[in-house]
């Protein structure tokens, strides 16, 4: 910890220029006279290896700088050196708590580039698994976020219930986290006998559990104190910062790619887009809780009318998309997950760019925590719901 003391510098307005205002140049941290402390990268509340340099005035946060890249594996470079099929499992390692979503986005992007489509049954299986994964991701978020804030019980509850989802994944494809569930053109595996029953049982099992989480937190006085009006971001700022997913919706923007530009089979289902009003940590909590319930609705509809038929579309053994480029994005649990693929007509992507929601959302941390206390920084990091594997890729 480095301490810089100078009691003359008290003009906060000068020291905290809005980063959204291009006219005010950034001041380097070291020339000013605040307390500068380092948080992370090895810190349990940073959800991985995020390092944040905090500029403080007492306990008040004047500014932050995120240092990321500790988990950088060069996923985009790897993609250029692998065939389309070989690269498929790598995408699971980005957002490893929502691996199914990553796979869905990647497979759909390549399918689009090749101008093929997955058969309806495959699309329904994809929707069911992706929505299960969204619930699992939100449960993990809730557990760790509540733990950061000091409520330990939800962690045990959510992990207990998330286990049921992972069991379904394990029975479906043999893996629990990095599932590699989908293939370019459809799914590799047909559902196992009893899949639909398992999913239906899960729906009846988890619905009261979500009420249980809410019972613990929604009206909990401590939870309200710690989350209300903490980490507020306005809709305009969120859009300017490219923030997507629940964080954007909690600021009141009713935008969800599943509705705005439906992919997979989402246009077949009825569901609502929950939105918040204030854009604070509490609203983001409510939005995610409501989203879990909407996911249950989607899964219920999907599992009840899952069509029969093939699960693999007509794709050649060797994936060789024509020369061209495509951008395709999906609504991952954390926001817009996009793949921009440039093909040169060979079996390997010429360039593959991942547009990671966590990376872009994390950029909003700075304006969200300004003026708050150090303890709130922990709450805000939790509420953005980042996964460092995806931030760093």
């Amino acid at each position, binding site marked *: 910890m480095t301490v810089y003391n100078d009691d003359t510098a008290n003009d906060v307005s000068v020291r905290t220029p809005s980063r959204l205002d291009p006219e005010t140049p950034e001041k380097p941290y070291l020339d000013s006279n605040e307390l500068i402390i380092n948080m992370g990268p090895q810190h349990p509340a940073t959800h991985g290896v995020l390092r944040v340099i905090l500029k403080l005035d007492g306990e008040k946060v004047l500014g932050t700088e995120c240092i990321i890249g500790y988990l950088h594996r*060069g996923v985009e470079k790897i993609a250029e050196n692998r065939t389309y099929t070989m690269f498929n499992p790598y995408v699971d390692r980005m957002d490893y708590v929502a691996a199914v979503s990553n796979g869905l986005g990647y497979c759909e992007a390549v399918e689009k580039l090749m101008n093929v489509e997955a058969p309806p049954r495959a699309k329904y299986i994809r929707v069911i698994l992706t929505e299960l994964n969204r619930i699992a991701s939100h449960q993990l978020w809730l557990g760790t976020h509540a733990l950061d804030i000091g409520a330990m019980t939800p962690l045990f509850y959510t992990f207990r219930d998330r286990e049921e989802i992972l069991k379904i994944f394990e029975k479906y494809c043999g893996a629990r986290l990095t599932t590699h569930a989908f293939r370019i053109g459809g799914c590799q595996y047909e559902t196992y006998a009893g899949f639909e029953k398992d999913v239906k049982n899960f729906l009846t099992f988890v619905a009261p559990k979500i009420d249980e989480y809410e019972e613990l937190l929604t009206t909990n006085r401590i939870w309200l104190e710690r989350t209300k009006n903490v980490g507020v971001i306005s809709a305009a700022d969120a859009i300017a910062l490219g923030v997507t997913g629940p964080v954007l919706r909690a600021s009141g*923007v009713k935008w969800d790619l599943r509705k705005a530009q439906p992919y997979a089979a989402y246009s077949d289902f009825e569901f609502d887009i929950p939105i918040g009003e204030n854009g604070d940590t509490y609203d983001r909590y409510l939005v995610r809780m409501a989203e879990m319930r909407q996911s249950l609705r989607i899964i219920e509809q999907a599992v009840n009318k899952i069509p029969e038929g093939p699960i693999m579309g007509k794709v050649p053994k060797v994936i060789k998309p024509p020369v061209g*480029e495509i951008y395709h994005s999906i609504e991952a649990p954390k926001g817009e997950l996009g793949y921009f693929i440039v093909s040169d007509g060979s079996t390997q992507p010429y360039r593959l760019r991942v*547009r990671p929601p966590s990376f*872009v959302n994390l950029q909003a941390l700075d304006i969200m925590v300004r003026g708050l206390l150090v303890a709130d920084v922990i709450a805000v990091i939790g509420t953005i719901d980042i996964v460092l594997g995806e931030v760093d890729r």
Partner: protein
Amino acid sequence: MAEEVKSPAPPPPEGENKPTAEKPVAAPPAAAAPPAAPPKPAAPAKPAGPVPLPWTSPLVEKYRSQYGSALDAQTYLGQNYLSVDRSLIPDILRLLRDEEQFDYCVDITAVHYPKREKQFDVVWILYSFPRNERMRVKTQIADGASIASSVSIWATANWLEREVYDMFGIQFDGHPDMKRILLPDGWKGHPLRKDYGILQQDKEWVQINLGIESGQ
């Protein structure tokens, strides 16, 4: 993505409809090929997928009359993109945000074509909430050249441009904090360039900072 993907893929005429010099001529990424100025017909004529078509819309007409040949509009698989001259870059992005409501900059990235004279494509992926429409803006720049930053247009460009700089070495003029983001500050080389090998690393940096011979 605004329009639906054209379901009956138009039977492609032989060769490209509107050959653009920026398309990677079918060649493996690392292999040597002649400096690719003349567009070749796609090597085997059998699958030849859809081809980029001219994109016509009021938006394009408006800017074409304003900027003329510095701007080229195409659509591929239902996705629209504008290829513009580098000199137009800050202006046209600002116009797209202010006049055409492209208020959300989804992504900024680059593509490296080492055999081309202007080696890099810089790509902006934009989305408009009011129009529910996506488009891309592309420009070509030479190695070592810089390009105007769009941080003042979309705040999100800050990290995205830093990543492009980190990975490709493209400098953005007017960026408030132009430095590496994923790799360590002292690292040499820009890994997503095509001349950077997949096992290559900054051995010196690894030696000094990690005290080992190799990071592998």
